[in-house]
Every structure is written in structure tokens, then in C-alpha cells.
């Protein structure tokens, strides 16, 4: 489906003739190229591995039933010899067979969340929230839960590579030094540092040192899902960049305008979830339940928990005038 094979003229003519709104996902779809038609109706792309062996259904069933019947016989083997490999010098807190828990933190979007990591003989296996950390309160989000898998990612490089060849660390240092030397005369005009949002004062100070050394260099912080709009909004409201922190335990009525504050919106969602939940208990604290109004353009966890949810186009959400103690339907101003 290369661009060369597309007849742009035919596409323009076709679109000019068509009346009313038209939707397509690619130019190939509009042009209705034979490649696109084939792609649309084939379950697997070409060159995907296929079982084109001429073994028929009968022989397949014969083979599989024999395999299943023989699978039971595999239990009749003597267990293979197992080794026990103790430490040479055992770490002090370690008890064989019991995990150790380490307190750590994970940054996401520049905000660190306190975690506890279960470790078996030095291998981390499970991530849980640190109950003493204000951003976690003992909970974790899916990113923290999934982070343990990145340690065992088979695609993760086991050593230093250059063009697929294993190299020593000294080779990297030498190459880095040569590149840095080359930038001295240009004042770092060819130097760009790309990072995620850096919240560490130490790392930020170190990068600032580099920038002072190479005045022409630039430091770019990038996030796939940044909170720039929330920051800009906070600046409009308060005159400076601030991070609003809500105390949902004190809120009797919560109005959320396209903000998925319980799950995905912002760094404190674990804390907000816990706070929100404490005001939803019927027994115990004697306080009235809170009430949640949500106006949003897509489905979200917060919308799912809402007492009143108003589906709205995202562009219409700013026009909602929240009026507490009124029904959601009356809030469509």
C-alpha cells in the first residue's frame, strides 16, 4: 500500500462527487485499491506464519489423541535431580524461603509514588503501594503493577550494545567523551538532551550544569500524555503554575468536568480514590455520603462511579455550569 500506487486524481474526483460526510481511515480506503481490499478481507497479513501442512483433519485428530493418551505416561518418570544452591555469605536480613520487602518509588509524569517491592533472593516479583506514602496510601495503579514485568522483558538489553555488538562500558565512555569534545567549539549547538519529566533536583541540577557548559544546547522534556493543559488551566486560575491537590474527604458534592480523577487523570488518583471511598461508606463514620456529578465525552472510571453522569461532547464540557444540589439534567445550561 505505497503512496506511489495511489491515483490521487481519481481520489479527488471521487471525493468531489460524493455528497454528505464521508469517513475513511486511509487514502487506500478511499481509492479502494486491490491491496487494501485484500488486506480488509484477509484475517492474517501475508507472510504471517500459516499452517499449510497437508495433514488432514483425521490424521490431526489421530496424532492429538495419541499425544493426550501418552501425556499421562509422562507422570511415570523419576523426578529430575534438583540442586540446592545456598549463599556463600548470606545477607543479614535474609531468611531462606521468605521474601524481603523494599521501599522504593516510581516516577510517572514527573511525580513519584511510594511503593513496596517483594523480592525473592534478589528477584523482584510483586509491586504494592507503600501505605505510608501520601500519594499511594497502600495502593498502586496499573503502571506500577506492570512495572515489574519490564525487569524480565526479554527485549531488554542484557549488556551494552553498539550496532548489535557487545561492547564494554569503557567504549561507551570513550565514544561519549569524543562526542562531547566535538561540541566544545560549537558551544553545544548540536547537543539536545531528551528526557521524561525530571522531578529529581539532583538530576535537574546536573543537566543544568551541562547546559551552563554548553550554552547552545537544549534540554527537552517530553511525555506521551503530558499535563500541560492542566498546568495552563491552573495558571489561568491562580496566576502561577500550581498543582491543585483536592481533599475529597471534605467534599459533599463533587463535580468533575471531563476529569478522570479516580483513575487516569493526574498523579494523585490513588489518593483520591481512597479519599472518595471513605466518604462512600454507609456504616461507621456517621458522615453523609458524597455525591458525584460527571460531565464527560468518553467513558471513564470516574464516570462509572458517578451518581449522575452527563454524556457531552468534550467541546461542550466547558459550557457546563455546575449547580450543586440540583439534578444532573438541570445542569445542562
Amino acid at each position, binding site marked *: 500500500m505505497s503512496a506511489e500506487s495511489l491515483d490521487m486524481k481519481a481520489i479527488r474526483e471521487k471525493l468531489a462527487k460524493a455528497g454528505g460526510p464521508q469517513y475513511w481511515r486511509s487514502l487506500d480506503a478511499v481509492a479502494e485499491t486491490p491491496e487494501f481490499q485484500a488486506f480488509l478481507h484477509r484475517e492474517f497479513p501475508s507472510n504471517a506464519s500459516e499452517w499449510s501442512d497437508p495433514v488432514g483433519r483425521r490424521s490431526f485428530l489421530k496424532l492429538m489423541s495419541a499425544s493426550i493418551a501418552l501425556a499421562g505416561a509422562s507422570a511415570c518418570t523419576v*523426578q529430575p535431580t534438583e540442586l540446592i544452591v545456598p549463599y*556463600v555469605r548470606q545477607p543479614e536480613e535474609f531468611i531462606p*524461603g521468605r521474601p524481603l520487602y523494599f521501599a522504593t518509588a516510581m516516577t510517572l509524569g514527573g511525580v513519584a509514588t511510594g511503593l513496596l517491592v517483594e523480592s525473592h533472593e534478589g528477584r523482584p516479583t510483586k509491586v504494592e503501594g507503600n501505605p505510608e506514602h501520601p500519594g499511594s496510601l497502600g495502593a498502586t495503579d496499573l503502571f506500577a503493577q506492570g512495572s515489574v514485568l519490564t525487569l524480565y522483558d526479554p527485549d531488554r538489553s542484557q549488556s551494552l550494545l553498539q550496532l548489535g555488538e557487545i561492547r564494554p562500558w569503557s567504549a561507551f565512555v570513550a565514544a561519549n567523551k569524543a562526542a562531547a569534545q566535538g561540541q566544545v567549539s560549537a558551544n553545544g549547538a548540536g547537543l539536545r538532551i531528551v528526557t521524561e519529566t525530571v522531578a529529581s533536583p539532583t538530576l535537574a541540577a546536573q543537566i543544568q550544569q551541562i547546559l551552563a557548559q554548553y550554552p547552545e544546547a537544549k534540554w527537552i522534556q517530553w511525555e506521551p500524555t503530558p499535563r500541560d493543559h492542566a498546568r495552563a488551566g491552573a495558571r489561568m486560575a491562580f496566576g502561577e503554575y500550581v498543582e491543585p491537590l483536592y481533599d475529597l474527604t471534605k467534599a459533599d458534592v463533587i463535580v468533575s468536568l471531563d476529569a478522570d480523577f479516580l483513575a487516569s487523570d493526574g498523579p494523585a488518583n490513588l489518593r483520591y480514590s481512597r479519599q472518595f471511598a471513605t466518604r462512600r461508606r454507609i456504616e461507621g463514620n456517621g458522615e453523609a455520603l458524597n455525591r458525584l456529578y460527571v460531565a464527560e465525552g468518553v467513558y471513564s472510571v470516574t464516570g462509572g462511579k458517578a451518581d449522575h453522569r452527563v454524556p457531552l461532547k468534550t467541546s461542550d464540557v466547558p459550557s457546563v455550569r455546575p449547580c450543586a444540589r440540583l439534578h444532573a439534567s438541570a445542569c445542562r445550561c
Partner: protein
Amino acid sequence: MQVFPKSANNWSRASIIAGLFLVAGLGWTVLTLQRSDFVTSANQFIEQPVQFSHQHHVGGIGIDCRYCHTAVEVSPSAGIPPTKTCINCHSQIWSTSPYLEPVRASFREDRPLQWIRVHDLPDFVYFNHSIHVKQGVGCETCHGRVDRMPLMLQKSPLQMEWCLDCHRDPSRYIRPRDQITTMGYQPAVAQSELGPRLMQEYNIAGVEHMTSCSVCHR
């Protein structure tokens, strides 16, 4: 014309009885074989990287089990001692013995010893040393007279039948907690009287819980 001679009647009767015996005999053979040391790998000496003698260290010197197997009271695994534990003493005594060269090499080169597992439970059962020790099951009850073993060997068959034998009525085996590591333990009073008393004292769960599948097959 008669095809079979008259004696065929007797032969057919005899073969029915012989067939029954054959089936029973085959069943007996299979069941006996299944419980044999050949299958359970009990009572078989296994050569280890270091010919460590429990007989000498436990029976001769009288070192408590927990000096080396430190985790037995707090962990599912009793723990195999690190090389450092051997070197504690053997840097002073028998420090030039050729038998201990693998131990010294391990300590020198920071390379762990690789012992061969003697008690190998299947991976689909969960076993926890600490709970057994806490509830009064002595080391000797499962591991036998370790103080008489020049080389470690598996004394019990470690089959489910064997586990259940105790789980159905532990009072026949349990002993006071201060006698856990004693080898050649003899109850001070009759076991039939001591067992039920300890069961009550240690608050040991009833037979319904102890024989529930998920106690071991988690």
C-alpha cells in the same frame, strides 16, 4: 463331532480362577512397586559435592539442627547453611583437610556449593517447615535418625499416603516444642495421653481442616 475333549471343562474353570489370581497378582505388584524405595527414592544414599556427615556433626559433636538450618522455625524452607557457616568452625579446625577443599574453594572464589536435594517434594504440593515445627512435629518424625546418617538420606516415602497418615491423627506423633530437635526422643508419659493433651494445648486444627485438599495443594 466334539471339538473339545472332556478335560476342557476343567481347564476353563481353572483358567477363570488363574485369571483372577493373575489380575490380583498384577495389582499387588503394581501397588508394591509404587511404594517401593525404587519409586519413592527413600533410603538411597546420594553422593554430595562435600561428604558432609550428619552423624559426626549431630550425633558426635551434638550441634543443634537450627545452628545450620536457621530458617526452620520461621520459613517454609528450613534453609541450607551458607558456606560461611561451615567456615565459622573450619577456618580453625580441619582447616587443611582435603575433604573440605570444595568448601574452602567456595568461600575463596565466592562460588556457592551445589548440594543435591535429598527430600524432593513434587512442585504441586506446598510444604511449610515452620508450621510443623511450631505444632510439635519433631525433625526426627519425618527425617529419621539424622544423628546416625553418615550421608544424608530420605527416610520417609514422602508420598501423599504418608502425609495423610499423620494429618488424619497427628496426636500419635507430636511432641513438646522443647523436644523438637531431639534425636531418639522418648515421650516422658505415654504418647496416647501426651498426644491429645498437646493437640489441645497447641490448638491444632481438626481432621476436616488438616485433610482438606487445599491445605497442601494450594
